[in-house]
């Protein structure tokens, strides 16, 4: 793997829109990625192994729940800071960012938003410190884009709930101590339950042979008559809106994260195009390569503006789910296209592990699919602007 020479593009001086604190947050995350992620990530991705030491690193820099208040172990930072952290981590690898996203937005966020004070105190500090890792179970083998059709269910057995069902494509599942599981009660209403490793009947088999997010662990959650204590129900929100609220937070992070992956591909391709000589001149001097690079920086700049504006809206509590959906879809699509074009600029070198591009490219195939597929996000925008529901 080549040394990490990354320099972030800022074509429109967007740094002027950030506070000094935002820039310090970004620099800290960037420094950490350069020091602890870039040197090792390719090897782990090649081996399809999760780099476990990353957990303590992510916890140490404060990437788990950066916007959760300090009293629960978070840092109390704003949404733009959270976005910048996700951007920098995904600049290193989408799999590592997924680990951090899930912990922050899909585990800590629902406990903080929908949980009791006791649940917050019990789980959040341990999740912030990385002592416990969490995962989020919504998708099922037969219910991906249509989570409302889920069959995982729980029955009230007086002093406990009895949980049955299965979840699939769950990041962090193989090592998580805590799972936020969405299941229907006897009336068919969706609720969140906190399931802990060790509960009888709960298992988490790992999903192998992925060609994407190879440095992140994915698995299933299987519930076979799991007795869940009643105090493990998240009481403050139910219905499909509860898990979708978590997804808003995660998708927002992805909208930023994808910019990181795109910036890394662009930066690599730009540098390569100035060094690689063909026909007696650097390939960056050829019009077709310049077209690719010019389009990349344009798209990155647009995506940066989108993410920043969305961050401002989220800080004000005004971002709608549809706005978040648009940014997730646009920015991931932008990144996957840039990864592909950047790979071509590098020619044969682009397919090797010497450079990060192919890894980003493969990772982004998951990112464009999870947390709402590209197509579903188009339908969300479609519904928002026409008022006509294409899902049903």
């Amino acid at each position: 793997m080549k040394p990490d020479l990354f320099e972030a593009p800022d074509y429109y001086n967007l740094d002027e829109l950030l506070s000094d604190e935002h820039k310090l947050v970004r620099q800290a995350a960037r420094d950490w990625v350069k020091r602890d992620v870039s040197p090792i990530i390719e090897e782990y991705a090649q081996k399809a192994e999760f780099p476990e030491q990353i957990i303590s690193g992510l916890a140490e820099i404060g990437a788990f729940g950066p916007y959760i208040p300090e009293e629960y172990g978070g840092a109390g930072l704003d949404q733009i800071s959270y976005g910048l952290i996700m951007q920098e981590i995904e600049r290193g690898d989408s799999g590592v960012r997924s680990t951090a996203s899930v912990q922050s937005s899909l585990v800590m966020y629902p406990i903080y938003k929908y949980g009791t004070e006791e649940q917050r105190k019990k789980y959040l500090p341990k999740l912030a410190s990385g002592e416990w890792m969490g995962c989020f179970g919504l998708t099922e083998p037969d219910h991906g884009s249509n989570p409302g059709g889920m069959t995982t269910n729980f029955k009230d057995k007086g002093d406990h709930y009895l949980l049955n069902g299965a979840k699939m494509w769950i990041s962090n599942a193989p090592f998580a101590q805590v799972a936020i599981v969405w299941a229907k009660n006897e009336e068919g209403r969706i609720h969140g339950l906190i399931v802990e490793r060790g509960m009888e009947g709960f298992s988490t088999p790992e999903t192998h042979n992925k060609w994407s997010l190879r440095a992140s662990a994915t698995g299933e959650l299987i519930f076979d008559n799991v007795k869940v204590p009643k105090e493990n129900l998240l009481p403050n929100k139910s219905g499909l809106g509860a898990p979708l609220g978590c997804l808003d937070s995660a998708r927002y992070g992805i909208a930023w994260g994808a910019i990181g992956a795109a910036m890394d591909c662009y930066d690599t391709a730009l540098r390569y195009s100035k060094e690689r000589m063909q026909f007696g001149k650097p390939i960056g001097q050829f019009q077709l390569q310049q077209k690719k690079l010019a389009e990349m920086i344009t798209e990155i700049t647009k995506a940066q503006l989108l993410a920043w504006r969305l961050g401002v809206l989220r800080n004000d509590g005004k971002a709608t789910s549809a706005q978040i959906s648009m940014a997730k879809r646009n920015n991931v699509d932008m990144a996957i296209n840039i990864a592909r074009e950047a790979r071509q600029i590098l020619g044969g070198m682009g397919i090797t592990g010497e450079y990060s591009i192919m890894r980003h490219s493969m990772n982004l195939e998951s990112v464009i699919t999870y947390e709402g597929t590209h197509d579903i996000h188009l339908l969300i925008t479609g519904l928002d602007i026409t008022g006509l529901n294409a899902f049903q």
Partner: protein
Amino acid sequence: MKILVCISHVPDTTSKINFTDSDTKFDTNGVQFVINPNDEFGLTRAMWFKEKQGATVHVVNVGGAETEPTLRKALAIGADEAIRINTPATDGFSVAKQLANVAKEGGYDLVIGGRESIDYNGGMVPGMVAKLIGANFVNTCIGLEVEGDKATAIREIDGGKETLKTSLPLVIGGQKGLVEESDLRIPNMRGIMQARTKPLNVKEPVDANAETNTVSFQKPAPKGAVKLVDSVDELVNLLHNEAKVI
């Protein structure tokens, strides 16, 4: 123990250097600034003294408001308090005079500076501060232990090391070796958040005229084209007849 760490706000080593105003001013446009690396080794050592020996750590910088992010980073890493002396850092002597004033007023036991800053590389400030406040001075310091008011310092010398015993108050010109690069700290998010509420006091400068003034800057001539040679004989011939170095 009360420690003052002097922090220079310098361009990152990867910055592209340009000058403006007929080559008399450094062009800061698009330049990213960092804590001077020699100072960062010192700051990291100071954090060790804070954590292991209960020292109080203040950081100080001479410069305009644009240098505050650098001080905030030092606070995020763990310094207790920051002081910014509100005047541009012109030459070594004027900076040393400002720092000496703060060092004296604050009654610090240990003043840690960097051996030199990586922008103008003057390498004069810590020595001058020591003289101005009447403290002991160890330059090119690559190791420091303090017990009570006694200090053991290791100094880098040509081809080796020198171990010195001295006493507080002490000024050092620190560098790599005080801690290693792998010991340097990346501020974490909680530290950054806490830095918000730590004091960053802006102090007006004392009278100190610069003793030197910049007339102009000049960049090194660009490197010439590389010539590839096929044989040792040709190389010897070129070195002898063209480069005239052998």
